[in-house]
């Protein structure tokens, strides 16, 4: 039976490809974490780098990354979640809404270096915000906005219609229904969108390189510049400081892993409640 043999071969190839990918990921993560953990101490996270080599610690970079993520979410979450509510609950199918959806799609495909260029031209230079946390955060806001919008809209749509009907039947207005019933119900799913956006902002380099800047100092005010952890990895790796790079790459990976696990836990709980588990 030739086709049975054929079927077997295809199956073996597919299993081989899947295992190869899994092994690759395990190797990548294992190699970086395994190499980074050698000689790692927690002092590395809390010290400032020293000397002209700028090695030995990453505290200012961690501070810059967190500052940047915090500021970005502060601006992007209201816009993204609010926009998601609008698209799910209010928007019709008019021309304006269609245009906005198209714009969001295009925005989601804009290369990160172009966001960086734009941020440099508009925020850093035109508005005179210099290389600063604020310039970086405004740039990142535009970058994560499509993701936030999409996930929030989906989350709101996942809330069953019966919830709305029940609320309206009790005499609640539409605004009350949205903010007291639908928003709280959809919140866990919206939260995963926030986590994913934070993860993206955390790992992003090209868009912050020329907006948040390179200075290895701890930012205090929104108009202070700072070097993020990912930018730091870029500078270390391209100047041959491999040992230090491993440590920074490990920190980046661990944080991304935590973000991922956390958002998976939250979303699977939400799914179990409302959405038939997609296969």
């Amino acid at each position, binding site marked *: 039976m030739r*086709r049975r043999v*054929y*079927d077997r071969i295809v*199956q073996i190839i*597919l299993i081989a*490809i*899947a295992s190869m*990918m*899994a092994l690759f*990921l395990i190797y990548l993560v294992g*190699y*970086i974490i395994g190499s980074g953990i050698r000689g790692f101490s927690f002092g590395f996270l809390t010290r400032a780098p020293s000397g002209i080599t700028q090695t030995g610690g990453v505290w200012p970079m961690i501070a810059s990354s967190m500052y940047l993520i915090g500021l970005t979410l502060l601006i992007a979450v*209201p*816009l993204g979640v*609010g*926009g998601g509510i*609008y*698209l799910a*609950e*209010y*928007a*019709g199918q008019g021309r304006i809404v269609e245009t*906005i959806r198209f*714009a*969001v799609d*295009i*925005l989601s*495909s*804009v*290369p*990160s*270096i*172009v966001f*960086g*260029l*734009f941020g*440099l031209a*508009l925020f850093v230079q035109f508005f005179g915000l210099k290389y600063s946390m604020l310039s970086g955060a405004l740039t990142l806001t*535009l970058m994560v*906005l*499509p993701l936030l919008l999409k996930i929030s809209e989906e989350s709101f749509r996942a809330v069953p*219609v019966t919830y*709305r009907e029940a609320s309206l039947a009790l005499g609640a207005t539409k*605004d009350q229904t*949205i903010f007291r019933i639908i928003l709280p119900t959809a919140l866990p799913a919206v939260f995963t969108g926030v986590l994913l956006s934070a*993860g993206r902002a*955390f*790992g992003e*380099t090209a868009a912050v390189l020329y907006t948040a800047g390179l200075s290895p100092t701890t930012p205090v005010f929104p108009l202070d510049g700072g070097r993020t952890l*990912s*930018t730091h*990895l*870029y500078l270390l790796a*391209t100047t041959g400081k491999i040992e230090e*790079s491993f440590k920074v*790459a490990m920190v*980046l*990976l661990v944080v991304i*892993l935590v973000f991922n696990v956390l958002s*998976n836990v939250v979303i699977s709980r939400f799914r179990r409640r409302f959405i038939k588990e997609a296969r």
Partner: protein
Amino acid sequence: MGHYQKSSTRSLNNGTAYLKMRKMSLVELVLFLFTLTSLVGLVLIFLFVIKESLPIFLKVGPLPFLFGSIWQPTAGKFGLLPLLLSSLILVAGSIILAGPLGVALAIFMVEYAPSYVRIGLKTLVELLAGIPSVVYGFFGIIVIIPLVRNVVGGSGFGLIPGILVLTVMIIPTVTAVAADAIRVVPKENRLIIFALGGTRWQSVYRGVLPAATRGIFTGIILAEGRAIGETMAVLMVLGNAPLLPRTLNQPASALPSQIALDMAYASGDHRTALFGIGLLLLIFSALFISLARRVARSAA
């Protein structure tokens, strides 16, 4: 498509516009303005990139700028052909590798794997997508480049590691979109083949894939869009020499990485030329996403 309008418009024949005007509360207005920021942002991006890049198009001319074969900003030569060709090679090379691999992974996930394997693979794909591009670049420097150096020779930097790194980075896009497309193919498409005595692969090949073709292509187009704009990982492994690519095993420079590399010190014409590259990238990605939308829509 609010869940409210359906019921309220039903009672009025053509009063939708009137109804919307009257019902627009303050909350709705504010939320609408929030939604509008994406559109405004996108328009601003286009305006500023065009405004900053206009001088180079006027000075050099669009065709010499796009197809000039020498990129030497210090000598006043702004030809994008070396960068453009390298970028196209990177996109083509990575999609040739990532397309089949990504689709195979999607087929295996949806059609073959038991549920615990499927969940594991889904997590794997999400993780691959979430790893920052600088980490991929670093991985390229410490693992892929020595490998290329040993196998092919030369410095190791160049288009080969670029293609390999990009391949890993865009597989998640291909797989995620293709898996969605395969998942929504009706069960009957498979059952019919089984009922005729077909094997599993026949059910996939004859029953599922023809119905999922458009979705799979959408994923591939989106991945191409991602590949052409990818900056940091490519920047770190390419060797950054803006030469016309004659072989795969030579240092090269791509459109986005050249921006990241030069922006730190560029001024005058050089700076506007970099914005010109930005405009080119913007147009490429807009074209890719429009194409993907069109393909995806005609599937529905």
